[in-house]
């Protein structure tokens, strides 16, 4: 049976449509629907239950523990109180997971990973860290609420005193309803937003407190996917996988090539020769949405790639998608065509992000 977050009953009583995602029963959407949830996030404030995601704590220096070799981002120069996005790679340069590293103290780290990968990642970390005592998986005692949207700061100010000091991709320890917890200014929607890490057993109180502000709307995984595609963020299993490297996904900037890390040799080799496929972002000429598993085609109807993610974009009023274009087709593509066995639709390449009015850095 699928896992349930500490807020599962809240979702059910709000009338959410619940689906399994990454081994978890999660709210896909609430009764008002994805379009209303989209508007809440882009114009107001929305809250996501992200308690399914994984959190690891690593005690010790990055080089001594071996953490520095497991992740691709640079850790030595990472300030305490900041977050950095990056990857853990396999020996082929493929992606074991994408993750965010929080530097909690000079020699203490939190690593946040995808729900579906918790077990796999924990095994990988345990195998590659020096000494098991340094690692703890706190995923099942840590709930997480993502409060996102242009009004999120204003909404959280009474609950998280001093939150206004947080700049993009930093975090602090705050007293929230009597608990000392981590709040970071991070998110997955392209808007101003925060993630609150909270004790599992007390998560209901926080959920109710956040929603007691009538400006806040509960939002589900359906709109979360729409929002992240609108700003071209990758989702593991779509734009990244054991067979897809950060170089193919256009995420090379989150890899510090000057340090040693697992998968480095293969990744550098791939970068030198040019990856076999490259992620492109494209906009449909109509409201028709590309879908994962559909294909990209040239004007001559030659299959040139596969679609990784796609959705209708409420912000732009057209279908949008991300897909991998095979190497031999990357040079001359400006206009592309997507479809499957039943249809073809014209599209044009777009620049990241599709949605450019996000309040992320406000």
């Amino acid at each position: 049976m699928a896992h349930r977050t500490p807020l599962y009953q809240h979702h059910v009583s709000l009338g959410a449509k619940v689906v399994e995602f990454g081994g978890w029963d999660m709210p896909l959407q609430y009764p008002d629907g994805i379009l209303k949830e989209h508007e809440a996030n882009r114009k107001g404030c929305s809250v996501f239950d992200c308690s399914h995601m994984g959190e690891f704590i690593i005690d010790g220096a990055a080089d001594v523990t071996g953490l520095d070799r497991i992740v691709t981002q640079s850790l030595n120069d990472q300030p305490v109180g900041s977050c950095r996005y990056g990857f853990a790679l396999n020996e082929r340069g493929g992606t074991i997971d994408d993750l965010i590293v929080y530097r909690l103290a000079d020699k203490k780290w939190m690593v946040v990973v995808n729900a579906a990968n918790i077990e796999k990642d924990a095994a990988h970390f345990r195998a590659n860290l020096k000494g098991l005592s340094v690692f703890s998986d706190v995923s099942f005692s840590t709930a997480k609420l993502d409060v996102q949207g242009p009004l999120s700061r204003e909404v959280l100010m009474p609950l998280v005193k001093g939150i206004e000091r947080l700049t993009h991709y930093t975090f602090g320890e705050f007293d929230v309803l009597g608990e000392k917890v981590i709040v970071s200014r991070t998110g997955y929607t392209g808007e101003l937003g925060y993630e609150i890490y909270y004790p599992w057993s007390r998560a209901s109180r926080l959920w109710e407190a956040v929603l007691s502000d009538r400006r806040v709307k509960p939002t589900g995984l359906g709109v979360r996917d729409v929002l992240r595609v609108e700003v071209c963020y990758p989702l593991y299993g779509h734009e990244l996988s054991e067979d897809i490297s950060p170089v193919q996904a256009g995420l090379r900037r989150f890899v510090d090539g000057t340090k040693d890390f697992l998968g480095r040799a293969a990744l550098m080799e791939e970068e030198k020769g040019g990856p076999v496929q490259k992620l492109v972002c494209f906009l449909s000429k109509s409201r028709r949405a590309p879908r994962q598993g559909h294909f990209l085609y040239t004007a001559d109807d030659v299959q040139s790639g596969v679609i990784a993610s796609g959705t209708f974009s409420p912000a732009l009023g057209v279908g949008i998608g991300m897909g991998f274009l095979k190497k031999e087709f990357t040079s001359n593509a400006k206009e592309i065509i997507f479809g499957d066995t039943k249809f073809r639709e014209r599209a044009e390449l777009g620049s990241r992000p599709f949605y450019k009015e996000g309040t992320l850095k406000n």
Partner: protein
Amino acid sequence: MEIIEHFLYTKEHEWVSIEDNTGTVGITDYAQQALGDITYVELPGVDKDVEQFEQLLSVESVKSASDIFSPVSGKVIEVNEDLVDDPSILNRYCYDKGWIVRIEISDADETSNLLTADEYRNYLASLDRNDNGESLEE
């Protein structure tokens, strides 16, 4: 859940309203609710020939795509162009302004394969009893 008494229905949640030899076709209240916010309708070409229960067109909601099947055999004689620019009509007025196509019916006897309003209502009730929270997401 709204059901119109004199319409006929399919188990795939399409409706047809028959006048003389013409069937007006759409999706039911149950279908539009299950689909969620509808964002795209792929209309068939006028003159397209369809068989009963064959795929007629597809509709998309934000996160999924679904095939719509024809309740009757015949030839498409008119399509609702208003749905192209505003597919949300299907969510708001699924039984009137949200009609999708009109079909010239080739075999009137086939309507015996369709459900009456009462039968459709009972069918929905049986689905409710078996509801496992199935997702429409791909």
